[in-house]
């Protein structure tokens, strides 16, 4: 009896392992991944790296305005998206809006928007708003909205109900109830999500230029196209430093908030 059980368990495990091997094998077959090719072409990778060094130092100066535009896009996109997220987050929270079905459409819109990656959003907005940073800002705004609204409504639903009850008891109307009972409890987590989203947006904004949505990505795609690998390296280093500084600052502030 016990032996039979153990045998079944063993069989199950080997089947699961076999299944995973099959998935990985078929996926690599379909996409044409080959370890042999990876190793036989290592020398090409080396050649590319050689071309990247030394980076074109003078190019830093040239792309600084594009880098600043990238950061501005992230700032504006996060701000617009973050502000638009506030009413949605409130309406999607079941402890704020007691009528159950009202939250459903708000959650549906939020979930729908979160399924679209920011690069796709940018590609959609470029034909609408034209090539340039405006499309990028809209793409980042919509993306930020999705992220912040979701995280904010989850933290609203987790707030302490006590102060809300106290606000009801003192005779506060619904607006006062939200501003004096709910908002003070969620300001800190909201700001933290806002900064977190800003970090993501700075990184995302660096590649939005690929689809024509402004920022430093345009220069990245251009220099790659012209095989100017020393300049590519400059852009990569520049982006690396900027992202590192912004992440560091934002993390420092977020620690203080909580």
């Amino acid at each position: 009896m016990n032996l039979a059980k153990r045998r079944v368990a063993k069989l199950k495990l080997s089947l699961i392992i076999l299944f995973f091997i099959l998935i990985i094998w078929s996926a690599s077959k379909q996409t044409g991944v080959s370890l042999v090719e990876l190793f036989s072409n290592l020398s090409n990778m080396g050649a590319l790296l050689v071309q990247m060094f030394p980076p074109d130092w003078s190019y830093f100066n040239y792309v600084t305005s594009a880098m600043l535009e990238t950061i501005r896009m992230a700032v504006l996109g996060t701000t617009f998206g973050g502000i638009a997220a506030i009413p949605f987050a409130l309406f999607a929270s079941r402890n704020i809006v007691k009528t159950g079905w009202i939250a459903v459409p708000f959650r549906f819109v939020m979930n729908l928007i979160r399924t679209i990656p920011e690069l796709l959003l940018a590609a959609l907005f470029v034909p609408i708003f034209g090539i340039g940073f405006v499309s990028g800002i809209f793409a980042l705004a919509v993306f930020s909205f999705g992220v912040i609204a979701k995280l904010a409504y989850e933290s609203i639903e987790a707030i302490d109900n006590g102060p809300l009850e106290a606000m009801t008891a003192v005779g506060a109307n619904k607006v006062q109830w939200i501003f004096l009972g709910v908002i003070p409890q969620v300001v800190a987590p909201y700001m933290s999500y806002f900064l977190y989203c800003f970090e993501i947006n700075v990184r995302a904004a660096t590649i939005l230029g690929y689809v024509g949505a402004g920022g430093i990505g345009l220069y990245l795609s251009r220099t790659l196209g012209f095989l100017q690998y020393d300049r590519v390296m400059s852009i990569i280093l520049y982006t690396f430093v900027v992202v590192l500084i912004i992440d560091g600052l934002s993390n420092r502030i977020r620690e203080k908030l909580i």
Partner: protein
Amino acid sequence: MEKVIEFKNVSKTYPDGTQGLKHVNLSIEKGEFVVIVGLSGAGKSTLLRSINRLNEITEGEIVIKGNSITKAKGKQLLRMRRDIGMIFQNFNLVKRSSVLKNVLSGRVGYHSTLRTILGLWPKPDVALALSALDRVNIKEKAYSRADELSGGQQQRVSIARALAQEATIILADEPVASLDPVTTVQVLDDLQHVNQELGITTVVNLHSVDLAKKYATRIIGIRAGEVVFDGPVDEAVDKTFDQIYQRSGKEQGAEASGL
């Protein structure tokens, strides 16, 4: 005497069919310090919270100073709640806000929505809030964050909030259940002073028979949603409490001394 709170044949049936309150008839007069005693689950909280309609009743009517709160709607209900302060077991302060802001939140019913959400409290309101804090002896904590205070201090802040409300009735739902014996006495002393000096009608739910005897001017005993005792404190003898708590004399002594 002026009737402040009246229960007229009040019943509460929960959706699952359990009866929280059964045909309760009470009238509480101005300036009384009423303590409601009873076992957990007997309906003390339901009774107290139905006074300002944090709980809805399913039958009967509750009348506050001649006006039915049961029938009140919209603004009228908010106005009636404004005049009733409430103290909770878990203090229910906004922990991240300052003590002063918490006390001022009691003033929301007196000003426009815009003014209150922007925090533009008029000077007399701030003065009133500070004097309310002074009355409960924690004025120096006005600008501390609420979560920096001890439990006893937080409960005094919530008393100050009720005072800032200029409430004529204070309801306290197990106000000392999460406090130690020393702060328990301080908080109940505060409530008693407020009751005696300002004439605020006070209704308190308490677990402890000893405390009920010490502070109440009148005791109401609740058992299984029914009022089984209602009278001045000197009429409430040990036998009365046995009846409320459904037990023999020996056990009663043990629990009464154990707060």
